[in-house]
Structure formats: C-alpha cells, structure tokens
C-alpha cells in the first residue's frame, strides 16, 4: 500500500477517534477506557501473522507469548467491559 494511502487512513482515523469520544460523560469513563483497551487487543491478529511466518524457535516462542498476552487483552477486556455495562443497564429501569 502506498505511504500516502496509509497516511490518509491514519489522519482520518485520528479525527474519527477524537470525534466519537468528545461528548462522553464522566459516568462512562471507566467502561470507555476498558472498551478502548479491549480494542487494541486486536494486535492478536498481528501476533498470529508473525507466528505463521516464524522461522526459528526464538521467533516462534516470542510470537506464541504475544498471542497469549493479546488474547488476554482482547477477550478479557470485552468481557469485563460487558460486566460493567450490564449493571448500568439494570440501573436505568
């Protein structure tokens, strides 16, 4: 992909990122931080890709560790965020 295309994606994503959270109330800061945290767990995709083309045992070992850590980040993040938000919902009745 061209550097220009990547730069465009990056800059537009920065603005989207700013916009979507600009109006969040302090009530939701904790779940939002936790949810955003879960999203960067998608580095799992990167960890799987590097595990696939690992050639030495060192590389493979590092990549497998990365997969474990990234899975914890991603799955744990979404589960715990859901647990928090479930309570908020019950509250609104």
């Amino acid at each position, binding site marked *: 992909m061209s550097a220009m295309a990547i730069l465009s994606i990056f800059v537009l994503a920065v603005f989207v990122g700013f916009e979507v959270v600009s109006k969040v109330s302090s009530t939701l800061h904790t*779940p939002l931080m936790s949810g955003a945290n879960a999203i960067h767990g998608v580095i799992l995709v990167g960890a799987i890709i590097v595990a696939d083309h690992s050639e030495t045992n060192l590389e493979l070992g590092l990549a497998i560790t990365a997969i474990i850590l990234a899975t914890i980040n991603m799955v*744990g993040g979404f589960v715990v*965020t859901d647990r928090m938000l479930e309570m908020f919902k019950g509250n609104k009745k």
Partner: protein
Amino acid sequence: MSRTLYDLIGLAAGVAFILALKGLSHPKTARRGNLIGAFGATLATLVVFFYANPGSSLPLNHLGLILGAMAIGLLIGVPAARKVQMTQMPQLVALFNGVGGGAAALVAIVEYLHLGADATTAEVIFTVFTVIVGCVSFSGSVITFMKLQELMTTRPVIFPAGRFIIAATLVSVIGVGGWVVSALGTAPLLILAGLSLLFGVLFVLPVGGADVPIVISLLNAFTGLTVAASGYVLDSVLLIIAGTLVGASGTILTRKMAEAMGRSLFGTLFGAFTAKAQDATGAAEERPVKSGSPDDVAILLNYARRVVIVPGFGLAVAQAQHTVRELADLMISKGIDVAYGIHPVAGRMPGHMNVLLAEANVPYEQLLEMDEVNPTFGQTDVAIVIGANDVVNPAAQTTPGCPIYGMPILEVNHAANIIFLKRSMRPGFAGIENELLYDPKTMLLFGDAKASLTQVVSALKAL
C-alpha cells in the same frame, strides 16, 4: 480467500470498532457498542486463519500452537474478567493494557528479526517505535498495577536526581533506538527493549496515587499507537485503523480525565518530578478530633431535612454499598431529602463510583454529579463522607502547592454538619492531611464503614 475480501472484512471490523467507541459514549447504547466491538474483534481474528500471506500457505504454520496459545489466553483472561471485584477494576484495566503493550512489543521484536535487507527505512523505524512504546506501556502498566493494588507505596516516588536519571534514560532510549535503526542487530534491540522497560518504570514511579488513572489512560493510548505502527509493518489496514482509533480516543479521554481532576496533562506527568517529597505525617496526628458514636450520628440524621452522602473508595473497600443504600432508603422513608454527591474521580478511576453504586442498585436519579450537588451544600444539614478524603479536602482550594491543589472538590465544608466515616486517621490516597477532619462541625465515626453503617441504621430505626 482473496486479498480484496480479506481487506474488506478487515474494513468491516474497523467500522465495528468505530461504532463500538461511539456506542460506549452514551449510557443507553454502551453495552451494545461493546458487543459490536467484540464482534469486530472476533471477525478480524477468524479471518486471519483463512488468508495466506504472500510467501505463506494455508493452513497457517504452527496452527496447533497458535490455537493452543489462544486457548491459554482465554483460560486466563475470561476468569480474570469474570471474577474481578468492581473495586479492583482500575488494576485489571491497567494489567490488560500492559499485556496488550507487551504483545505489541513482542510482535515488533519478531518482525524486526525478520526484517531483511529489503526492509524500508520506514518499516524499520515503525518497528523500533513499537518495541520502545510497547515496552514502556508494559512496564509502566505493571507499576500502575502495583500502586493501585497497594503492593507498593501510592505516594509519588521521588529519588535524588530523579529528573536527571529519567531524562538520561529517555535520551539513551532514543540514542539506542537510532543505533538499532541504522544497524540491524539482535543484541542492540534487546538493549533497547531493556532500556525502554526501565524508562516505563521511571516514568510512572513519580506519579502520585490519585493521578495513576490518568497515566493508565495515557498508556492505553500509547498501546493503541503501537498497534497502528504494527499495522503499517504487517500491511494490515485493520490494525492501523483500530490502533489509531484507540490512540486518538485515548488521548482525548486522558485530557478529559485530567480536566475533571483540575490538572493539566503536562502537570500530572511532569509535576511530580518537581514536587518535593512530602511529610504527610507530623504534629497533625496529635490534634484533637471530635469522634462520635453511631447513636450520635443517628440522632443528627433524624433531625436533618437534607442529607448528602459522599461515597469514596473506602465505601467500596468495605463492601458497604448495599448498607449505604439501606440507610438512604430509611432516611427517605422518614421524609429526609437524600442525594449522593459523586465526584468525577470518586473511586480510583473516573466513573468508577458510578459502576460501584450501580452494582448495589442505587437508583440513578439519586446520583448527583459534582456541578449539580455543590450549590446545594449550603442548604444541606448533614454531609456524610464515607471512605472519601481527597475529593472533599479543602486544601485543593486553599493550599497552593499541595499535590491536589486545583482539583475541583465536593464542597462539603459548606454543609451545616459533616460526618466522616473512617477506618483511621490515615490520609487519603493522595497522601495529604485533611484539615476538615479537625473542623468543629465535623464528627468522626471510626471503624469499618459497613459495620458503622449497620449500627447507624439500627440506631436510626430505633429512634
């Protein structure tokens, strides 16, 4: 699967993440937003197994190991997320962020080992950037975890020539980073990773306990950026979008939190470097305070028309959320006007107290935000401060130079009577003495918050 389809599905996952963040910004849509995000992440993960990268073939090499590693991650992550107590939420978020940063750094290290002579300078720079920032995020998060879990002191750790050491570490990180970029080699990279880990530790050590959430949020944004940089190197649009989104929204969130605490972001991060180590203990311990019994408290409440409850982290530690709700219900049944005053950073993280009280089914309408409740303290007969300290400390308004100076507070000092439920005279999380405890209109009720509240409830019932 063709590259086009692979990229389209990646794009769909990216859109899901945008919708997730958007949904998380509003209480009504928050849960659905989070589920959309989880769906996007699942989709993105599944699709990797069906696309052969150039020079590779399906099924993926080491498929068994990959699936096994994911299973281990699931077995660790899901129970941790299910069992964690709501009071420990900030620590868990810090840990999850740390492992994410660590994963990004490891991915970058493997990538680096793979970079051949044909690697572009940009690829090398982004890889090295990810190693540095991922390591900082990892070790910094571990320190925030230890501070929040009180495995180490929550006060700012200031060491002699601290500023110099931190600056020197940063300079050497950048220097070694440049070396690693210009001369590919495994040893220099490991030195760089080590230095970056050290910098993460040094960077967080001087931050005081109350400011730790801001740092977690910042490190969260850092991890996002490393994911975006990995996306560039791994040629994945999805990682670029997801990482940038988290980086950008994390930065805004960090700034909002800092605002809620009345600090500039810069001051939070670098203020501690210039702060003097404080003596929070001292002659103050000897001063007289007025302590009361649960009966005294019940009598005071019985004749009040308006009571504001100010819950703090101590309330949650004592697991007294349900008991405080019982007390509030009892007072309401006696015709007393009851509200909760919630400080934006009550608990250990912005919005944490709302989560904790939601868990105890406290009706949403009784929770007043700081701006709503502050003007009413003048008409409030009794303010009950339960396990909170820093968020009602007038020093934030009156003592320039103290670590919480400038933080907006709940102005309970304007109420006619103040009751503090405390375990001891120990200062709050920020480690600062609270003058309000010695005020003549203040009554202290010592003991475990839950036990104390239970006694107050039965005393009030008897009246």
